[in-house]
């Protein structure tokens, strides 16, 4: 067993607990947070691909030493193929996702300790716990373990909002938790139905039961389970009808917190989307649901972003819209389409983090996030304005940045799959995204400064600028060398498209 795989989850949890103990010791929190956060992108690069089995062992058919002592009715039947442990699977796609999550986490933590006068151990605790939960969601092959960490991620999200001290944060957090406390038990109900029909919570074993005919795949209970799991997926990702509460959550968190929460949403989208594709791809309805919901998310998210006056809410709605692009890729069901969707997810995490941190500089300097009250900031921060402008270009899909490559792949995939209309919609919405971003950029940076706008802080922390530069450099590298990134995603995409577990 590869011990670095569980450490990818355990290390952030231990970091979180340790930083919580250091609360109010400012210098110690700053130093310790940065040192511990370096482990986040490093661990997935050091770990070998493989599996880890929590609280058990590998399937008996792979363990001749153990199975030699057992009776033949256990070793000779299907029981020998089942996984008697919580299995964590770490392959190339998971390595890329956990690395990107760790990188965004490192930069968000780095930015947060320098932007606040008194770094908060509790805030760092919430960020680390959220990262641990998301890593577990990405690695786990056990659907109940996924639900447990899904709930932990939701609690961490609420914690990030509560610690922000932004007006209205408690109300938004309570609304989010009330909705979550409806959606999460329904997700659990879907898992209970799967357990009742298949007798398993391990996803590979569930798929095995369906494919080998041990369970009738056309059982209507499985359709009900699919519906309930899709409902939980909608809540966790911030897809319609939960897009308004999710963008409200983004607007009530600090910029570094918003950057992490959107990363949590995207990776929850991917993880649960992959689970739905793996288990329920034999149901044509599941792919139509993914396509339909994604289309709705794209249209609603991007069109609602146009009318927003709060910068963070605008980026939040744009982020929801970009989720739709990812879903189109997954819903097309072809290897190329799924690769494109997953590549778009990786790109979107970085671009949205860049925009939240970049526009967060505005909040840091002025304390204002209402675009109607802002202006003239280009003169003060031309460097940051340029970085934010390039981030906006990246989100809109301007070459040679990363989202251009992923959106081009998505359009090609939709044409290949026989859905040219989807390609047209994606192009039109990219143009609307560009317009929305340029409108916000103009009001914040280019138009004359309003007389009553007070600049509270002239200097910007170097940590923020470094974070923006790192994210932009990675976006440019991914844009210039997309094949390097897609090579990590192709094995997973091929197995999903082929219907192989």
């Amino acid at each position, binding site marked *: 067993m590869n011990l670095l795989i569980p450490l990818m989850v355990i290390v952030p949890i231990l970091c979180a607990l340790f930083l919580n103990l250091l609360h109010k010791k400012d210098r110690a929190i700053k130093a310790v947070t940065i040192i511990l956060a370096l482990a986040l992108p490093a661990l997935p690069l050091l770990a070998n691909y493989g599996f880890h089995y929590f609280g058990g062992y590998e399937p008996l058919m792979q363990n001749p030493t153990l199975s030699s002592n057992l*009776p033949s*009715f256990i070793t000779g039947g299907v029981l020998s193929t089942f996984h008697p442990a919580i299995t964590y699977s770490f392959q190339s796609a998971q390595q890329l996702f956990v690395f990107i999550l760790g990188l965004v986490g490192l930069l968000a933590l780095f930015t947060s300790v320098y932007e606040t006068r008194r770094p908060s151990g509790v805030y760092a605790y919430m960020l680390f716990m959220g990262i641990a939960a998301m890593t577990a969601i990405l690695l786990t092959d056990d659907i*109940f373990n996924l639900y*447990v960490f899904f*709930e*932990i991620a*939701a*609690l961490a999200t*609420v914690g990030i909002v*509560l610690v922000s001290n932004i007006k209205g944060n*408690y*109300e938004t*957090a*309570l*609304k989010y*938790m*009330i909705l*979550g*406390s*409806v959606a*999460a*038990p*329904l997700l*659990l*109900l879907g*898992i*209970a139905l799967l*357990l*009742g029909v298949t*007798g398993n*919570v391990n996803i590979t074993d569930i798929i095995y039961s369906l494919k080998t005919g041990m369970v009738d795949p056309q059982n209507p209970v499985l359709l009900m389970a699919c519906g309930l799991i899709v409902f939980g997926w909608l809540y966790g990702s911030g897809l319609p009808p939960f897009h308004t509460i999710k963008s409200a959550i983004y607007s009530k968190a600090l910029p570094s917190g918003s950057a992490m929460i959107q990363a949590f949403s995207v990776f929850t989208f991917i993880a649960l989307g992959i689970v739905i594709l793996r288990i329920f791809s034999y149901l044509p309805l599941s792919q139509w649901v993914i396509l339909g919901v994604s289309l709705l998310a794209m249209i609603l998210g991007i069109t609602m972003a146009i009318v927003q006056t709060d910068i963070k809410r605008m980026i939040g709605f744009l982020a929801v819209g970009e989720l739709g692009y990812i879903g189109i890729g997954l819903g097309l069901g072809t290897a190329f389409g799924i690769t494109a969707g997953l590549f778009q997810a990786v790109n979107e995490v970085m671009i949205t983090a860049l925009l939240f941190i970049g526009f967060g500089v505005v909040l840091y300097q002025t304390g204002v996030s209402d675009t109607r009250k802002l202006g003239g900031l280009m003169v003060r921060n031309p460097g940051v304005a340029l970085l934010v402008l390039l981030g906006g270009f990246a989100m809109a899909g301007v070459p040679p940045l990363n989202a251009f490559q992923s959106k081009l792949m998505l359009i090609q995939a939709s044409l290949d799959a026989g859905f040219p209309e989807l390609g047209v919609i994606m192009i039109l919405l990219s143009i609307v995204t560009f317009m929305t971003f340029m409108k916000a950029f103009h009001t914040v940076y280019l138009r004359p400064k309003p007389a009553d706008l007070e600049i509270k802080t002239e200097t910007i922390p170097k940590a923020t600028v470094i974070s923006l530069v790192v994210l932009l450099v990675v976006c440019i590298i991914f844009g210039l060398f997309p094949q390097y990134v897609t090579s990590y995603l192709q094995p997973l995409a091929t197995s999903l498209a082929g219907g192989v577990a």
Partner: protein
Amino acid sequence: MIMDVQLGSLLTAVALIVIGIFATAFLDNLIKKIIGLAFIGDGANLFLIAMGYKPGGIVYIYLPGMAADWFAQNAAYPLPFALVLTSIVIGASTMAVMLGIIIVLYKKKGSLSAAKVLGE
């Protein structure tokens, strides 16, 4: 007619979930909404536990002197009980956080009415 224990549990679970959704959606008092959410969580847990029911089954504790294959054929399914314990803990933590937020909001706004506290 004597109802099967498992069927009775599943129907009770569904009833709890429906009552909980009604309470969450239609009652204005925040504490009553939280109680409704607790009903939904408890309904889901009862449904999960009912999945492990085996008519005439024994408790899944392997005692000395039991034959392994007799135990395997007669024990109830132990996995749902482990899952429900975890789910109860998660539900309790979520409930605690929500009640903490409500306390803060009550001190700020002096009301438990969702329309007043959460309304824009």
